[in-house]
């Protein structure tokens, strides 16, 4: 397809990043060998092995929790808020200084386009640390008490590795807690680079501990008796298992889980803007977004027009090398996730929905899935009910606002939703009726450290971000 939109390759240099052949765990302020096995982390765009990473055993988790407890008792809980703030400001500044390095490493390990890691993820990471730094000496004004909980066990997903780390660590530290964080199995590298940043900032040893590993490592952390707080972002299934495992304990919990967000387009919406919002809603970060607008609800009278323009726009999306500065859609994060997306897509076709994929040449190695839209989807279809967590959009139609709300809320999830209309009073009415924690009106997938994020119903509980986000780490 030769046209004016053809771009020459514009790859970002990898030279800024130095990946070591193997990594240990970050416990008590230093990198130590793990007592267990190790695993490989790969570049999902090429399947190249990037490094060997320690798989934290339950003994490693225990060591990390003890280090965090020591740091809490002896140092961090005794520091004034103002001093804690300065450490967090330092970290924010180092993140800004090393932002290109962090962005490139994130794209290599995760597969997301460099323009997203560079322009969205890493700037937000710095912003979250900067924002929560300022709260550390102002907690008495926030309304949630000023006493930290103690040691927080934090388990984060692979879709926004560094950003989820920031969402967890920044408020925890600002409130005076210490942390043990387990990054996702497929994306450990930026968390380990963050550990170096903690060293550069002279953060007291043990305040932040990073234990890499897979599900078993996370489970050992969540179930450890020495932690006071569990913060988890990931699947609803694991979230429920965590809720069961903490039953009967005094551990506090926040869960940020799955979603199946409705993105509602009314007939009076500015269609071209809405199409951009639909694309951003589902194809941002390859659709590996818990709040992705994965169910498009479009008013019947404009459905044909919206779909035609959507397909035209999808055909211009550039899928490929995550390090290419022109890339819009990068690699699927892992073989396992690609298999899951393929499985649900084939179920969608088997159940009678019609698939259309943007014409694009996918690289021959690595994990790829072309941006895809399903039409003729009903509420009973699995692709309308289950989180696909990939670049797959299900389209349903509606006739009246009441029907739109009914369909939007017809899900066990309740993380986010979108509304597109020119009518202000309608936005406020629909936003009021939607059972979702974040509602984007005439925009989508916007994030900010001052803005609380979190779900209703089976999308979890607790809020991250903003003043509200402090509640999870104070009593």
């Amino acid at each position: 397809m030769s046209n004016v939109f053809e771009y020459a390759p514009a790859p970002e240099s990898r030279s800024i990043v130095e990946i070591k052949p193997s990594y240990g765990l970050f416990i008590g302020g230093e990198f130590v060998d793990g007592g267990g096995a190790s695993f490989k982390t790969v570049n999902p765009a090429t399947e190249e092995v990037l490094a060997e990473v320690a798989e934290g055993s339950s003994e490693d988790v225990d060591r990390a929790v003890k280090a965090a407890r020591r740091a809490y008792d002896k140092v961090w809980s005794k520091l004034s808020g103002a001093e804690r703030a300065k450490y967090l400001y330092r970290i924010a500044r180092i993140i800004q200084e090393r932002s290109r390095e962090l962005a490139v490493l994130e794209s290599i390990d995760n597969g997301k386009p460099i323009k997203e890691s560079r322009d969205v993820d890493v700037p937000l990471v710095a912003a979250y640390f900067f924002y929560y730094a300022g709260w550390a000496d102002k907690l008495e004004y926030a309304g949630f008490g000023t006493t930290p909980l103690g040691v927080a066990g934090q388990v984060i997903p692979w879709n926004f590795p560094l950003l989820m780390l920031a969402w967890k660590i920044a408020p925890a530290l600002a409130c005076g807690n210490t942390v043990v964080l387990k990054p996702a199995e497929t994306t450990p590298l930026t968390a380990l680079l963050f550990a170096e940043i903690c060293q550069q900032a002279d953060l007291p040893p043990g305040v932040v501990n990073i234990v890499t590993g897979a599900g078993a490592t996370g489970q050992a952390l969540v179930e450890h008796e020495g932690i006071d707080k569990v913060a988890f972002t990931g699947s609803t299934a694991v979230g429920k298992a965590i809720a069961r495992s903490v039953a009967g304990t005094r551990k506090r919990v926040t869960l940020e889980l799955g979603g199946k967000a409705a993105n509602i387009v009314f007939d009076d919406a500015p269609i071209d803007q809405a199409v951009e919002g639909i694309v951003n809603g589902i194809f941002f970060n390859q659709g590996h977004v818990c709040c992705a607008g994965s169910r498009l609800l479009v008013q019947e009278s404009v459905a044909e027009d919206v779909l035609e323009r959507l397909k035209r726009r999808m055909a211009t999306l550039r899928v490929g090398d995550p390090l290419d500065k022109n890339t819009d859609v990068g690699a699927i994060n892992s073989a396992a996730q690609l298999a899951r997306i393929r499985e649900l897509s084939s179920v969608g076709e088997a159940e009678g929905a019609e698939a259309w994929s943007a014409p694009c040449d996918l690289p021959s190695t690595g994990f790829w899935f072309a941006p895809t839209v399903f039409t003729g989807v009903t509420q009973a279809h699995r692709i309308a009910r289950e989180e696909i967590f990939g670049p797959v959009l299900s389209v349903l139609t509606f006739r009246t606002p009441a029907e739109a709300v009914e369909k939007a809320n017809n899900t066990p999830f309740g993380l986010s939703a979108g509304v597109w209309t020119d009518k202000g009073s309608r936005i406020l009415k629909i936003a009021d009726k939607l059972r979702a924690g974040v509602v984007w009106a005439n925009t989508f997938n916007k994030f900010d450290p001052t803005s609380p994020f979190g779900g209703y119903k089976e999308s979890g509980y607790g809020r991250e971000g903003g003043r509200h986000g402090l509640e999870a780490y104070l009593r």
Partner: protein
Amino acid sequence: MTRLDVRKTYKLYIDGAFPRSESGHSYEVLDGKGRFVANAALASRKDARDAVVAARKAFGGWSGRTAYNRAQILYRVAEIMEDRRPQFVDAVARAEGIGDGPAGKVVDASIDRLVWYAGWADKITQVLGNANPVAGPFFNLSTPEPTGVVAVLAPQGSSLLGLVSTVAPVIVTGNTAVVVSSYARPLPAVTFSEVLATSDVPGGVVNILTGDAATVGPWLAGHMDVNAIDLGGVAGRPALATELEVAAADNLKRVRRAPAAEPDWTDEPDLGAMTDFLETKTVWHPIGL
């Protein structure tokens, strides 16, 4: 010849009506000295499920009312309780085995507690919500919203003040409730339900089941259309509380955990009994011409 008194049948309160238990079961309620007082309806699994259906049906209307209107209705409940004060004093005195003096104080505290919570209806949003100064041209506002249908296992000891202190904070913000009363001291809860029925509280907003939290509780904790549960009624029973919390995880209910022992309900409440059953919704909109 003395007149034979007409005794009341104590029934459940579901969807604004007073049915007996569909199971046909009742149980003996004794007073503080162990003497028979009445037979109370023994709520079953089916009663609990009916109550959840009623509470869900009432949620949209109740949460959609203005906060001012909910405030007035809760205040109205306090008014009617004050009007029927002697009846409540008698019910509490018999249920809790205390004299009329102390029972009167309990009733007064219960009425005052309702007035306190009534006033929160149109203030909680201002205290808990805020505008967020995001780094971009967006209007961004966070506001609290009710969680939905809340199961309340009411305290076992404090038959009226404990009941009011757990039900009022749930409904004042717009939630609807399915309440399991104190097992041994259910009659003040039944009298309270008669007040609710005559105080403009819409049917289904509060449903009161008399019976055993240990048998009805698990059905509510595992019910997929209940959004949250207050385990206060199983305070001091950690094994049961844990079992209920595990069941609640099936649909990630918000859980207000049971304390080790029933608290002193005369203590000034904090916001926790309300905030545990609230969600935060954040709405974004671009700013531009």
